[in-house]
């Protein structure tokens, strides 16, 4: 029982990290109807930024804030410079751009920071630890839940959040009420990148820092987003937690740690076969 409890809570902690990356995927998906394959590498790059700042002598939390800001700017720039020109291009062209971004970010990170694995600090004091959870697990869970709550409040209760949702749903009507749709999309990329950066910094102490650190995480985040419904932010969060717990329990007691990633793949294929819209994906009610 002890062991189950332990794995369950550990699953919640990593699940919350999958949840935030899944949410970043959903945010881009809602605006572009495409999955951003480079989301993980953007997060990885931001995590390296944080590592450099901390190594240069900056405190953890100042570095954290600066990284989130830097990731936001990077996200906006990527949308403006790379995605904007292919806005109206065929789907495959955009997918190729996403994959190009993935490869470029990965190689540039390897080139600048080398492929050797680095450790990344956890900022949480030992006092935060619980009976079944390490201090970092508790801290990561709290930080990601806080980020998710902030995003919820932003999108639900602020005019800018509403405008971003509107621009994603109906760009033509949005322009007619005066919303600058292009900038809303850029802001969306910025926010997704910032959320991804938090996920990267929270997961790095667990998986260690290297240019390929996010490939597995991104796969879990895909599974989470699909499970919840690729266009449902709430679903992505729930999906993340479910995937995290499932992965941990199955890995510890059923299939072993080496096959954990298979869980994500099975989930992805399974959801697509059985229920492509996931738990909460677009149950659209409309009347004409």
């Amino acid at each position, binding site marked *: 029982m002890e062991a189950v409890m332990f794995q369950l809570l550990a699953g919640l902690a990593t699940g919350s990290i999958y949840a935030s990356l899944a949410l970043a995927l959903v945010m881009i998906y809602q605006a572009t109807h495409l999955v951003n394959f480079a989301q993980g590498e953007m997060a990885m790059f931001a995590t390296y930024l944080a590592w450099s700042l901390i190594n240069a002598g900056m405190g953890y939390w100042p570095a954290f804030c600066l990284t989130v800001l830097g990731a936001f700017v990077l996200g906006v720039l990527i949308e403006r410079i790379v995605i904007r020109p292919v806005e109206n291009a065929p789907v495959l062209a955009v997918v190729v751009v996403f994959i190009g971004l993935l490869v470029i970010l990965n190689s540039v990170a390897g080139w600048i920071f080398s492929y050797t694995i680095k450790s990344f600090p956890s900022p949480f004091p030992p006092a935060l630890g619980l009976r079944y959870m390490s201090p970092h697990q508790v801290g990561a869970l709290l930080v990601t839940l806080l980020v998710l709550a902030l995003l919820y409040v932003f999108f639900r209760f602020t005019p800018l959040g*509403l405008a971003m949702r509107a621009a994603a*749903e*109906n760009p033509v009507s949005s*322009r*007619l*009420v*005066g919303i600058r749709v292009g900038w809303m999309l850029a802001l969306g990329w910025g926010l997704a990148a910032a959320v991804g950066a938090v996920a990267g910094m929270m997961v790095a102490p667990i998986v260690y820092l290297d240019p390929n650190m996010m490939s597995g995480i991104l796969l879990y985040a895909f599974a989470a987003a699909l499970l919840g419904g690729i266009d449902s932010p709430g679903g992505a969060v729930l999906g993340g937690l479910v995937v995290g717990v499932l992965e941990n329990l199955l890995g510890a007691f059923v299939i072993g740690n080496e096959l954990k990633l298979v869980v994500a793949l099975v989930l992805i294929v399974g959801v697509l076969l059985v229920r492509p819209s996931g738990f909460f994906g677009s149950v*659209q009610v*409309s*009347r004409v």
Partner: protein
Amino acid sequence: MSGLLEVAGLRAAYGATRVLHGMDFQLAERSITALLGANGAGKTTTLRAICGMVRTEGEVRFAAKRIDGRRTEDIARLGIAHVPDGRGTFLHLTTEENLRLGAYVRKDRAAFARDLERMYGYFPRLKERRRQQAGTLSGGEQQMLAVSRALMLAPKLMLLDEPSFGLAPLVVRELFAILRAINAESGVAMLLVEQNAAMALELADHAYVIETGRVVRAGSAADIKCDDAVRRAYLGY
């Protein structure tokens, strides 16, 4: 006459297909002007051209300033609200969020609250459904929502694309009565595109008849109503 909206030599095309071949018309402040014409005459395209939603040549002046070639969102910010073909509802947002978006570019919160109540006064059904997903509203309710959303911009000019489309005759009558009241109360000018020519001419002060992308007749609504050719072609008696 210096009009609120002056259109001269307006041309537009979708790809290689020319739709407007040099439209000329004007619209006076506080007036209601109707654009009449058969399917495919270029009515909807004219409205889209004014809003910068299609590539155009020619001149469009709003309040004496050139607006052709400007971006749709900038034109909206000048005070031109478009009730588009198909209503343009944000289906997954609530009724009230749709109205909030209409006032997105306005910063005055007190005026926003006042206008929201005003809309609910015109259309009590919308108030009942304020927290409901807009996609679940009926066609008539969505049309009311589209008109209200446009009014929330506090526009000087409203472009209405077939507001009667798909609505029961009784609902159309109600909607047009409210449009007339709004025009009388707040003085917002309206450019109305309609296939229902009889209804449109009842509401409008002034009308233009267009055929294949050109204005072929212009006059007061009363004159146009009496014009034999127009009567035979569009009014059916």
